[in-house]
Every structure is written in C-alpha cells, then in structure tokens.
C-alpha cells in the first residue's frame, strides 16, 4: 500500500528509493536524522565503518530525495527532507493506507464467520484454524 503512494513517480525514482531503503545502515541514518540535523562526522562515529563509507550512504539517501545535505563551515549537516507539508500529507496517506487495509481485513473476518448476529453461538476462535502459528 505504501508503494502505491509513489507509483506515480517515475520508475527510476522508485528504484532509487528502494535501493536507498534496502540497507540497514541507511534506514538507521534516516531514523537518526528525523529529529534534527546531524553532521556526517557525528553519524560516522555511530557506525563501525569509515567516514567515507558513511558519506557514501548519505549520498545514496540524498539522491533518493530522503535527506538533504548542507555544508556549514567544515561540517556537512544531514537532515531529512524539510518539506513539512508534503510529509504531513504523507503521514495521513500512510495512516489511510493502514486503515484501508485494516477495514479490508475486518470485512474479510465478517464475511468468513457464519455469525451475522443470528447465529446460535458467539464466534469461537477455535473454529477458525486458518490462523498460523504465532511469530
């Protein structure tokens, strides 16, 4: 559902996004920079890899449009896309996707049980053994 939201973009943009997000370190960098800008050197200190390696990760994120990089003095400051309205809209889109999917699942559950209010018994979870093992 989340992917639907960016389906209008060119395939290249989507490819870049997927590539950028397919790496655990890059996802972690994104999380760290959500609340404010961080310098590349400060980020580099957080990972067991070289400054250059972290800088490469930041460049991938930057090309995907997920972060912006700004040089201030000797430091390069990284932060997530500051387009606040866009992101706010995106948050609502995310929430909408989540709730649409939930409503679909609710409908599925309601259709599944013979319990339409007139049934003799309350729904018994043991009747529905389609649920997989936990985990």
């Amino acid at each position, binding site marked *: *559902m*989340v*992917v639907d939201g960016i389906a209008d973009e060119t395939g290249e943009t989507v490819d870049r*996004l*997927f590539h950028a*997000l*397919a790496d655990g370190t890059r*996802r972690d960098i*994104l*999380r760290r920079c*959500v*609340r404010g800008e961080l310098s590349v050197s400060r980020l580099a200190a957080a990972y067991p890899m070289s400054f250059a390696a972290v800088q490469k990760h930041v460049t991938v994120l930057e090309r995907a449009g997920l972060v912006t990089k700004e040089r201030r003095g000797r430091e390069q400051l990284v932060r*997530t896309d500051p387009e*606040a*309205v866009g*992101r*706010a*809209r*995106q*948050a*609502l*889109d*995310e*929430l*909408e*996707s*989540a*709730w*649409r*999917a*939930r*409503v*679909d*699942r*609710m*409908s*599925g*559950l*309601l259709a599944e049980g013979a*319990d*339409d*209010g007139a049934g003799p018994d*309350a*729904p018994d*979870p043991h009747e*529905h053994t389609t*649920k*997989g093992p*936990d*985990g």
Partner: protein
Amino acid sequence: MTVTSVDKDVDRLTLTIVADFTAPVERVWRLWADPRQLERWWGPPSYPATFEEHDLTPGGGVKYYMTGPEGEKFGGWWRVSSVTPPTALEFTDAFSDQDGKPNPEMPTTEVRMTLTEREGGTRMELRSVFDTREQMEQLAEMGMVEGMSQAIGQMDALLAA
C-alpha cells in the same frame, strides 16, 4: 469497496475514514472487543499483532506487539479514554519501548471510533488525530521507512519462493 469515504485534513492533522459493513453493529463491535478477533485484523499479515492485555474500560489499557518477518517486535499500547459498548470507543494509540512501557518520544494518535446502524448493516466512522505536527512528520518518516522495508521483505519472500 467497504471504505465509503476518506477525509484528510492536513491543518487539523486529522484522518477521518468511513466504512460500511453488512454485518450488524454488535458483530462489528466484537472485532474490537474480542482480542482474538482484533489481532486478526490490526496488524498486516506480515506483521501480525498479538494482544497481551485488553481492558476496554475507561482508563484501561491495551498492550500489543507486532512481529516482523525476521522476528523483530514492535510494541504498542492504547489508553482507553471512553467506551460505550457496542457503539463507541476512544483511545490514544502509541508506541511502547522494549519493556512495554509507553514511549514518550514516539508519536501518538487520538482515535475515536463509532458504530451506527445503517440500512441493516453498520457504518464505522473512525477519526484519528495526530498530537502535533512534529509527531506527524516523524511518523511519516518512520512509516515510509517501515513500509518500504516491509515491501522489500515481501519482495525477498517472493524471490525466495
């Protein structure tokens, strides 16, 4: 489609979603009131939810976690502010930390859900309000990241099949 309308108000940080079901109100209410039913729809199939506590009374709490494809757990909780069975429920939905305690650094949403009888079926109206714009943006960033990670996980599963 079950979803009848969706309204997104960026200025008021609010999502309102209206859905119509053919089932009666009491039946739809049980989707919320029975934790075993709730966990079959709350989390996406790849992140199934497990509800450990479920106390739908004013001031009561609901505790759950969702389990990701690699066994990673994401905790959440509700603080129930008001409940009127079988037609209305209001709660705060938030993330929890590793110990299952509410995490104050993470975004919260205020949810109000109402069920009304309509043409023999049930209309569910759900309004979800973000606490602050900062939280909303933070959640967008996380949702994006988690959603994309999840999509990638699903692609991996397909490729491995």
